């Protein structure tokens, strides 16, 4: 280093002007609750239990999703459909209890792949924060999509573009 460089003052001034130039640069911040980052199309978020177009639950409680789940986050109990419940459940068997522990879930999407009835899929929403652990165990009511016959708008909104469009 020569004497001029040893003064350090030119280098300090140079550094100061670099930081000063950042004063006028575009901010990298995204103002989260008001402004959201758009997710890619393959993003896997919160699970949704789908209904068919008549508003019946698709899930038949076969348990394949629970078996496929590497984090063992899914718990379910099956029940038989009673006469008169045909407008609620699509198949003769349905899930009386269906719980996903969102603290265990790793959002791998294997449940979606395993499901033979296209009853579960991962949406584009992120699991919201909660104050208690119990709040992270999502019950069937929390997971079920709105009924398309009663709330078509909510249904379409919750459906997003990740659900397979099938009509069987």
């Amino acid at each position, binding site marked *: 280093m020569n004497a001029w460089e040893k003064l350090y003052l030119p280098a*300090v001034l140079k550094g100061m002007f670099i*930081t000063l130039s*950042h004063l006028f640069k575009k*901010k*990298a*911040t995204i103002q989260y609750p008001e402004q959201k980052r758009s997710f890619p199309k393959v993003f896997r978020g919160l699970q949704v239990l789908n209904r068919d177009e008549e508003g019946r639950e698709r899930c038949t409680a076969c348990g394949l999703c629970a078996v496929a789940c590497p984090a063992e986050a899914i718990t379910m109990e099956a029940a038989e459909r009673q006469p008169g419940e045909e407008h609620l459940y699509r198949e003769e068997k349905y899930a009386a209890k269906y719980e996903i522990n969102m603290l265990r879930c790793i959002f791998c999407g294997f449940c979606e792949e395993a499901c033979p009835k296209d009853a579960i899929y991962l949406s584009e929403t992120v699991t919201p924060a909660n104050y208690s652990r119990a709040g992270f165990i999502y019950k069937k009511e929390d997971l079920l999509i709105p009924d398309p016959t009663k709330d078509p708008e909510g249904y379409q909104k919750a459906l997003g573009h990740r659900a397979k469009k099938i009509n069987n």
Partner: protein
Amino acid sequence: MYLLMIDWWFILEKFLLVGFVVTFSLLIAMYTTYAERKIAAFLQDRRGPNRAGPFGILQPLADGGKLFFKEEIIPLASSKFLFVLGPSLAMLTAMLTSAVIPWSTPLQIGGRDVPLQIADLNIGILYVFGVVSLGVYGIMIGGWASNNKFSLLAAVRGASQMISYELSMGLALIALLMLTGSLQMSVIVQNQIVHGWHVIYQPLGFLIFFICALAECNRTPFDLPEAENELNFGYHQEYSSMKLGLYLFAEYVNMFISGTVMATLFFGGYDIPFVNEASWGLSPNLLAFIGFVVLLAKAFFFLFVFIWIRWTIPRFRYDQLMNLGWKKLIPLALVNMVATAIVMLLRNR
């Protein structure tokens, strides 16, 4: 209004002025914390606090409220009296310095001239130096009383740093005192209004003074006493609640005051450059207000530079700090002093 041979108006106006200056410095210190966070954010391409109120301007209030309501912890092994004395001293000395700063030209209220300076001491600068030197006790006592190795280390560092940099600060000022021939703050400002700002005659002196002011305020790159990553916040590590708040506040008050001192000594104080404001024919009160705003603008510029430097330059190592202080700044200040003396001698001939 004379009663018992005492001019009560005088006492009242001084009390009001002291109250105003103290409140005002605290307010400035509050919003300097906000400015610090905002400028830091902007220099790093972030937005900074913007949730409390519009643009986050209520953030300092929220921070202050938080500090007041935090749990007060006094370590068992600490010396309790000194532990409380530390932050109080830091705050006290930070506030005391403002007593000799001429804030503006005198106000005229009811035919009285009310000088906007709490005390126009004939040893104004010496007083500033004395009080600033006392400021080190806040850090030393606090760090020592905490009975914590990190705090003690920080206190020792702080003390040695302040003593080292006070020397070159004083030497840099001697050259300035030779120019004015007075230690009185108001005379120094008057001299600049007549002859032009001192920074023109003493650029090197100003540079040395500025570097030393950074060191005296414990600002980066001289923030060794509170080095976060090696000393865990140093001397205020054991402090919580408003005692910590007082330390942090004292730092910002010190910054504001040293900004005004630099503006007063080197940048003409309340003087507006290139114009003769006395010839505008404005009322003296309005002129005083304009002068005050001008002084504030200069002080705020220095505050900005302080913050700007903090978010640009990394911290010195301890040996680098001592090298700079003793081997570079003091010889430089001496050379500056001698050169000034020679030039003055030659010009007087």
